[in-house]
């Protein structure tokens, strides 16, 4: 079965590139023999993580050269996604669990993105290295097209 050796891409830290990320992921998922539903899950999780990096990590005063780097790798049975950015804000992934009741009562409270990431991936890790690079690491078992 086909795998994909590590492919990296770097997109401007701009919500207008969420769609480009999803298109790229569709190409890579297809090349890796992933099912359309698996490709969708990857697109969803990357959309959420990238949105967070842009909205919360870089924030509104992001400079023009800011980027989000993605790495996509499929081995025999493991899908590994890395998202890296150099946003000043560190984030450790901590936060309250999403509360459906609160969602009904209040309007537009957050927490859905992280919830989706944790729901869909076995491993969701947040790191920051000494050089100021933030990495979100998402890992899950591959479910292939039958």
């Amino acid at each position, binding site marked *: 079965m086909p795998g994909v050796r590590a492919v990296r891409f770097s997109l401007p830290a701009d*919500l*207008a590139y*969420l*769609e480009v990320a*999803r298109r790229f992921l569709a190409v890579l998922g297809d090349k890796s023999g992933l099912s*359309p*539903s698996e490709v*969708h*899950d990857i*697109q*969803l999780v990357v*959309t*959420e993580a990238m*949105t967070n990096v*842009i*909205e919360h990590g870089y924030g509104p005063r992001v400079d023009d050269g800011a980027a989000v780097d993605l790495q996509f790798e499929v081995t025999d049975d493991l899908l590994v996604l890395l998202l890296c950015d150099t946003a000043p804000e560190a984030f450790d992934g901590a936060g309250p669990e*999403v509360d*459906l009741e609160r*969602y*009904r*009562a209040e*309007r*537009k409270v*957050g927490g*859905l*993105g992280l*919830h*989706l990431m944790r*729901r*869909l991936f076995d491993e969701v890790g947040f790191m920051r290295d000494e050089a100021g690079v933030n990495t979100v690491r998402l890992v899950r078992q591959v479910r292939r097209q039958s």
Partner: protein
Amino acid sequence: MSLQLEARQEGEVRVLVLEGELDAQTVGPFDKEMEGCLARGEVRIVLDCRGLAFIASAGLGVLMGVLGPVQQAGGTIVLAGVQAEVRRTFDLLDFSSLFPFADSLGEALRLAAPAGGQG
């Protein structure tokens, strides 16, 4: 393209046609449209999702934000022709039980009309 939005009135029902992909980049006009419906008291709403290929949490956030007020005003938000992948996102968040889903636009209009789902 990304997201095309079209609104029209069908009797007492407001129909919003969504085509493309709904994410944090494209959610703005949809948010505005939904808030507009609420402000004008147009609370019988059908979202024609047949052309909606993707929804991110930003889109669900808007829906969840207006659902309470819409229901308090005696209205409803019916989702018509939702594709499998969009439905999956609702399911993943356990939001599917909160909305009536209709296979066809006709069924959705019946569910949203005064004599319909809200009976």
